[in-house]
């Protein structure tokens, strides 16, 4: 153990801190917005903890990882957590994104959710964060399954937290689709357990390597991998299975949409990355032909998500379909099946986890300036009412289109660079270019509408709260930072992916 004892305990502390906060929230007095402040405070502590963990791990050369046994027993017997650069960076990104979504949408949360429900909303947010952290750090595939279920129920409940029939219907649809996903994942885990006799990821990997080298059980391994991939693809809204997502995003309150597309999808994708890199290993994935399928599905999602977004009039639904396209980018990176490709996919996870909550926060600011209408035309001229939200929308749109110096450009560039030494380079380049053009086709009109002066409307003045300005400022700063200085981050992520396997 070459990290200090405090850093060594950080994964455990952050998960249990979130859990304890969730458990104690219902007992707390429900006055002066104490539950919300507690949630924000605990997530903020987690931001600092994971930043410290990143600092410790990078100063040790960036290739250091450690396993944390949950209890007295090491890996094949007990549950374990594992922390490396990749896990630390992703949990940092998730916590930052969660904190900013909570802060940036706090006004619309106060409007949409009645006081009594807000306590439960805070409990659910804490549980969701805890389960995301556990998913990021876990080294045991069955633990991952349990926490995925916590994640699913909390996410559905967060969709249903807005008291309207549409949101209940959307949550129910989401619930059914993700139950199908969990069922497939569960049977895949059982198959893998039967073939390997382990539930801990690195022990599974050793056995699977042996099996593939001896060409034993190839068919069951392929089926298990395919079922796990489909299950997680349904849960992370890969295109043909994404029909639930626009409903769930369009009909829920803003903070739920931000959390859902910024964080919940990403947790499942990261678990898929872990299964690919850590349980099977990249060569095995290539042997079992899963990389090409993922790659093709990613490309289809990139195009179809954008095409569907083109025909939306509701801004939130448009951004939701754009999430489907962005999930396609991430799957494209995973489908390249190289360390560079997966690192680029992780970079895109981080970029999207920053930009999408920013877009939702911006839309919530703009639509409250336009009298709570969600249709694109109603937003005309709202830039001049709420400039911070307008700036956020512009920065987000530029980032989605891939304008240089914005976050999306960095991740798209690294996806392109990663695909250069791959045999499918031409497809991925074509898809990246087409999808960027399609993104521009629906984000540019949105920006133009927001910037156009509406002469017919009376001048509205709106007080923008300080907390909204601060969180929007941090969002924009992060977007530009990721766009300009992503090289160090990308190098760290690549090292993280290499030590993950």
């Amino acid at each position, binding site marked *: 153990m070459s990290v200090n004892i405090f850093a060594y305990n950080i994964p455990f502390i952050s998960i249990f801190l979130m859990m304890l906060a969730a458990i104690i929230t219902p007992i707390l007095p429900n006055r002066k917005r104490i539950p919300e402040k507690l949630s924000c405070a605990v997530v903020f502590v987690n931001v600092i903890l994971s930043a410290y963990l990143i600092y410790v791990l990078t100063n040790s050369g960036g290739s250091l990882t450690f396993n944390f*046994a949950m*209890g007295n027993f090491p890996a094949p017997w007990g549950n374990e957590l594992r922390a490396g650069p990749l896990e630390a960076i992703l949990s940092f990104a998730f916590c930052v994104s969660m904190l900013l979504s909570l802060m940036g949408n706090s006004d619309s949360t106060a409007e949409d959710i009645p006081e009594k429900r807000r306590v439960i909303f805070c409990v659910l947010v804490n549980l969701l964060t805890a389960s995301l952290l556990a998913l990021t750090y876990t080294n045991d595939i069955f633990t991952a399954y349990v926490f995925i279920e916590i994640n699913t*129920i909390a996410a559905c*409940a967060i969709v249903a937290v807005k008291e309207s029939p549409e949101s209940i219907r959307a949550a129910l649809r989401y619930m059914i689709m993700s139950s199908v996903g969990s069922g497939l994942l569960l049977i895949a885990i059982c*198959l893998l357990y039967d073939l390997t006799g382990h539930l801990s990821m690195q022990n599974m990997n050793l056995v699977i390597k042996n099996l593939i080298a001896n060409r034993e*059980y190839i068919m069951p391994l392929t089926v298990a991998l395919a079922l796990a991939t489909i299950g997680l693809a349904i849960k992370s809204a890969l295109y043909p299975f994404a029909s639930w997502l626009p409903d769930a995003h369009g009909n829920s309150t803003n903070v739920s949409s931000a959390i859902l597309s910024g964080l919940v999808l990403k947790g499942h994708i990261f678990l898929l990355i872990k299964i690919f890199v850590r349980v099977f290993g990249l060569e095995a994935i290539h042997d079992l032909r899963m990389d090409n399928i993922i790659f093709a599905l990613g490309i289809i999602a990139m195009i179809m998500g954008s095409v569907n977004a083109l025909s939306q009039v509701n801004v939130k639904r448009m951004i939701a379909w754009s999430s489907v396209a962005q999930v396609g980018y991430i799957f494209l990176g995973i489908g390249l099946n190289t360390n560079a490709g997966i690192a680029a996919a992780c970079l895109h996870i981080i970029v999207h986890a920053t930009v999408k909550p920013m877009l939702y926060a911006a839309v919530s600011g703009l639509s409250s300036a336009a009298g709570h209408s969600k249709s694109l035309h109603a937003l005309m001229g709202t830039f001049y009412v709420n400039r911070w939200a307008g700036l956020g929308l512009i920065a987000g749109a530029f980032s989605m289109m891939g304008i240089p110096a914005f976050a999306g450009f960095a991740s798209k560039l690294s996806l392109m660079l990663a695909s250069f030494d791959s045999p499918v380079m031409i497809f991925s380049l074509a898809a990246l270019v087409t999808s960027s053009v399609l993104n521009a086709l629906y984000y540019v009109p949105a920006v133009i509408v927001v910037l156009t002066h509406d002469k017919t409307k009376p001048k509205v003045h709106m007080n923008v709260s300080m907390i909204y300005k601060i969180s929007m400022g941090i969002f924009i700063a992060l977007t530009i930072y990721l766009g300009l200085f992503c090289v160090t981050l990308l190098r760290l992520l690549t090292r993280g992916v290499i030590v993950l396997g």
Partner: protein
Amino acid sequence: MNEDLRIIWRNFFNWVMGNGARPENEEIIPEAPPDLPFTQKQESRNSRFHELTLRERYSHWLEIHGLHLFSNVYSGMSVLICVVIVLLLLVTVAELPKFGSENNPANNEVMERYINSGGEETGAKNIVSGMILDYRAFDTFGESALLFTAAVSVLMLLAVSRRDSKNSPERLHKFSQDDSILRGVALLSIPVIVLLGCVVILNGHLKPGGGFSGGAILSAALIFAANAYGFGSVHKFFSERKFVIMISSALMIYALLNAWSFFTGANDFEAYISKGAIGNIFSAGLILPLNICLSLIVAGILYGFYALFSEEEI
């Protein structure tokens, strides 16, 4: 010949772009009366249907038949997917290791250690209890957190919101107030059920059973009492606030106990927990207190589910 083609083309063009000639034998269906129930509501053709462009006609058609078509395609795809998955899984199952054989890959060093040293390392006679509450305690903690998540979500959906908006339809289910047979049976059997639940909980590390099954039995006693004596009598000692506080504090104790054992175990600190002799009630370290906490959580949550679903409040 050329002229004919041109006429055909013009007709086609008009058909696509609208303003087409009206077919002579088309009968115009009168609009359906608006107060039909919505499932029987028939969409009628617009009398100016022939003037619509192809695109409008398409969207019109989609409006009428779209959902139906979508659900048909969806059903077809689902059947196909299910059949493919079952066939794939059957082929897979045929290749899996043999049923009941001791040379299967799953019977490896993991299972051997659970059995060989499970007794000494956890102090539990019931190896499964020792496994889920000591070796793989984090899984079980996640599981109780999942139960807590579900309880909180159901509470949100069924209690918190509906008390604000009392528009829920009347329940058909009414409790008869004085059912003396039910009360007599309840008086006799509830103590037995509670006793059985306690035995199952306290013997969780020795015999089959434990916190989950014992908690389920206790909640059965509570539900029985609520049905026999009415929810009001249960409310006297089990109000909503008490319910929430009980579940939260039991889960809190559970989480703290788990955190203590994880923290000391991972850092190799002294844990100050004695394992005791195998087979005694007071043995197996933390497993007994963990089981008691779990049973309180499970009993509370299961009774809460029943009360919420049948009575709208706890």
